[in-house]
């Protein structure tokens, strides 16, 4: 079967440019990209007025399966991903049981093949039980299909264990995705420490809690000459630590999430638990520094940290509600609204943060539209606006901080391995 995507503007994520071209898809691959490809024998997708991007890659999602299926499953989470334009998602291992043995890696892969709408790359644990004490059997986890290791949600607080983990992964071509938080310093804090924590009477989490571990792990990584990927960067200080480390050649990469470049802790007035997230929403100074980090390349990728929770769990007193917000369906629209429309990033630069940026972190040859490559393609309308309502979401949960807001930029269609899986609101597995 041949599909021709005609009349669109195509983002070249390698040269960071945009050009008018048609794309011919044959089977699961891109057969040709050039102007005026003949339509004969093809199914035609008219992309006039639309932007054609490589399928988006999300480095950081919580699919909640196995263990927390009331919040999300691999099926519903990948459906949300598809709606958001993502063709590949990296899922975090803080499931129950955690992904610290090959069996769970295989289970996730099987479920994703059977029920998933998009490609799922599982992350496995750094340490057994995510307890930060003993290394998990990383070679077996990698052999089973883990694309990275992470104890996401927890920091490996013992520096010696972290050193060993960073050394050990040098045998495998995978990154360590690092949740950076000094748990002693966070001390069960709830929100960013600052004027808002003080006036709301909510326990604060200082910026230093993140930055201490960012710095520690940059130093360890440099010392043992390994690589590390800093997850969900939220502070100005972390951005400058990573910037300095990159400058002196440390193999560090980093991601941030849409909420860190679009929201601040001022949103917490009213104690709406949809704004409770870890790391917490920071100050406007931090938000601007995150935008600057994206602009100058310090931050390689935008990842959602999609963290679904049921309304029963979220409709609680602020202190008792869980951390986390969903993000897959709104991620790119927040990027368009807050970064592209506000001239922080050009459109190709923005698309890079969703494609080649995360692909490079994983060391994968993805996120590029070129002949011979997999036909993962996301087609977006950067002009169209929409109001975020509860019925907009495709996943199981509704804990979005953008509910009620108007965003610009819609995902119109998504091809996964050459198949049109999402087209203007309708899904196909």
């Amino acid at each position, binding site marked *: 079967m041949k599909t021709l995507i005609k009349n669109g503007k195509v983002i070249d994520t390698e040269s960071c440019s945009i050009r008018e071209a048609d794309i011919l898809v044959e089977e699961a691959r891109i057969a040709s990209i050039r102007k005026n490809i003949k339509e004969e024998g093809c199914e035609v997708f008219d992309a006039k007025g639309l932007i054609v991007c490589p399928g988006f890659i999300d480095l950081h999602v919580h699919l909640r399966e196995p263990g927390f299926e009331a919040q999300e499953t691999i099926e519903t989470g990948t459906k949300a991903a598809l709606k958001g334009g993502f063709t590949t998602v990296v899922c975090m291992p803080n499931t129950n049981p955690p992904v610290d043995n090959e069996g769970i890696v295989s289970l996730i892969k099987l479920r994703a093949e059977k029920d998933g709408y998009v490609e799922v790359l599982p992350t496995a644990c750094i340490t057994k039980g995510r307890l930060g004490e003993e290394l998990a059997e990383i070679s077996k986890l990698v052999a089973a299909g883990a694309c990275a290791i992470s104890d996401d949600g927890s920091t490996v607080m013992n520096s010696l264990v972290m050193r060993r983990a960073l050394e050990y992964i040098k045998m495998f071509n995978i990154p360590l995705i690092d949740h950076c938080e000094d748990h002693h310093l966070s001390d069960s804090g709830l929100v960013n420490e600052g004027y808002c924590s003080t006036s709301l009477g909510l326990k604060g989490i200082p910026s230093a809690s993140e930055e201490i571990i960012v710095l520690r792990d940059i130093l360890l990584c440099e010392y043992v000459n390994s690589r590390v990927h800093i997850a969900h960067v939220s502070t100005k200080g972390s951005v400058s630590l990573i910037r300095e480390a990159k400058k002196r050649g440390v193999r560090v990469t980093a991601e941030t999430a849409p909420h860190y470049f679009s929201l601040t802790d001022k949103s917490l007035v009213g104690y709406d638990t949809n704004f409770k997230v870890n790391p917490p929403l920071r100050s406007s100074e931090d938000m601007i520094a995150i935008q600057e980090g994206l602009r100058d390349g310090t931050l390689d990728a935008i990842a959602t940290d999609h963290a679904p929770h049921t309304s029963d769990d979220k409709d*609680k007193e602020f202190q008792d509600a869980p951390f986390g917000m969903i993000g897959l369906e709104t991620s790119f629209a927040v990027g368009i609204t807050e970064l592209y429309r506000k001239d922080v990033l050009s459109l190709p630069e923005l698309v890079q943060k969703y494609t080649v940026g995360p692909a490079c972190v994983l060391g994968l040859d993805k996120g590029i539209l070129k002949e011979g490559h997999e036909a993962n393609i996301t087609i977006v309308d950067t002009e169209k606006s929409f109001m975020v309502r509860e019925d907009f979401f495709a996943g199981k949960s509704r804990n979005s901080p953008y509910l009620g807001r108007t965003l610009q930029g819609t995902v119109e269609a998504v091809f996964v391995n050459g198949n049109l899986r999402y087209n203007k609101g309708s899904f196909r597995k």
Partner: protein
Amino acid sequence: MHKWNRKHLLSIEELSREEILTVLQTAESFKDISLRPIKKSPVLRGKTIVLLFYEPSTRTSNSFSLAAKRLSADVVNISVNASSVQKGESLIDTAKNIEALKIHTIIIRHSRAGAPMILARHIDASVINAGDGYHEHPTQALLDMFTIKQRKGFFEGLKVTIVGDILHSRVARSNIWGLSKLGAEVTVCGPPTMIPVDIEAMGAKVSYNLKEAVADADVVNLLRVQFERESGVLFPSVREYAAMFSMDDEMEKYLKEDALIMHPGPINRGVEISSRMADGKRSVILEQVTNGLAVRMAVLYLISGEKEKTRKSSL
């Protein structure tokens, strides 16, 4: 008399200067009721008021309860053990069940900051915050301001020093908001570990030295030291705290002659305050308790909307 249009009393932060003054003025007229032989007014007859307390409290709950009874309201006390709630019913479900009994006002005390705001969003009854976590304790601040007004007569330029664990104090936060709105100058004093970040942005000055902080103060409000909280991290020992921050007999000589000594209670004699200072001529600690009643009557009355009704019918 100013207008009052609020259905809830959730924080001092959200009140205007005029609204605060309305409460203080209304409290003055209610103070007389407690001095009469028959201490009862019929203004809230037929109203049901629920005290929903998730934290132990004697003074605030008794004060509210008595205030409601003196206004002829029916009062129901519900104390909930916070731990049993965590196992079962959510705050919202509990409140909806209470509301299903057709009550008018819920007075809530909760260990979690923001709980009264969540409640107010989910139910139709009026909500009064009787203290939420480290956030606010509006009626305590109102009774503190009422006591200051009765004794000093003015707020503009008045120097008020609040001493103690400011980090964990809802009383301090509500007082800072209220007093600043009325034009007083607030200083908070305590060890740096007990001063929350950016408190200056709320309108308070910070001092780590008790002598300096009380030297030109017109009012010194001493907070209870909460032994149960983080001792060993926030301060090395009660002994060391008392040596540096206690309003003891020695400290008296630094005070102005007409300075007021206040305390929200319950007091730790010999820790944040000596007996002589607590019982001395400057102390208005028991007046605060008496005034609390009048202020809470005023709040219940204003929240009930009866005042607006009276005004309309008299027109």
